[in-house]
């Protein structure tokens, strides 16, 4: 349901810069510099779901979840398959 680039469309550089502690930010930067490139996949290698949940504002993370649900067609206004058939 999620791909790294979709997560980073919500957990933007500004969000990360504001919220990540220096130790975590340092790891993100060091890993990318060592690898020679910074990619969403590489960032999420460091920013595990635990770290995201710990440091990124939950409102941002919920937006990410809602966006994923919308992409999957699982939003409030749309009925699920079982509800439609009843």
């Amino acid at each position, binding site marked *: 349901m999620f791909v790294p680039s979709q997560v980073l469309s919500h957990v933007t550089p500004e969000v990360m*810069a504001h919220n990540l502690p*220096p130790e975590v*930010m*340092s790891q993100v930067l060091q890993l*990318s*510099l060592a690898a020679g*490139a910074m990619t969403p996949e590489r960032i999420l290698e460091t920013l595990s779901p635990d770290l995201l949940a710990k440091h990124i504002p939950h409102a941002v993370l919920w937006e990410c979840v809602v966006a994923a649900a919308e992409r999957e067609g699982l939003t409030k206004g749309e009925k699920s398959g079982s509800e439609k058939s009843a």
Partner: protein
Amino acid sequence: MSSRDFLGTVIASGLELEMLQPEDVIKLVTMEVLAHHLPVELKTRLLTAALKSSDMTASLVLDTLGVEGIVEHAPAPLLWQLVAGGAQRALGKEEAATSSAAPKGVSSTLLPAGPRKPNISARVSRIRAGATSRPTASAPLQDDDDSAFDVDTRVGADQPSSDFEVLDEASAVVGDDITAHGKD
């Protein structure tokens, strides 16, 4: 001008003249240092630029943050260390270039600071006295009329602490000896 202004000027010039490389900067002003010291705006800028670019390199970091950004926020001791490192490398290259083409009478500014070693004077005295034997030579030196040409080999036998030191003092002696033997 504050010390940071000075450091900024020196580092910027060093990068422009390629006496400093971006990698030299990032070796000292590491990602850890940047993560701890950069303000949010610069961290945002760096992350944005890194994600947009296909490569993340020291040059990208420097181009994004600018020398001013780094100099303003990085700890001063690191910046001084960066300048000192660049200076040492430059001096090392300069000495290497000079030593490979060292003529007689090399400038004493290349000599290490401090008093000359006493054994130099002793060797000079022997040369002046026209000594025929060397204290620790691998092969005895045949004395000839012109002991001026013995200078280098005599000097080499006593393991000089610095070639420049010996050449510099010996060159003065050679001049005297040539004059003296010319009169004989």
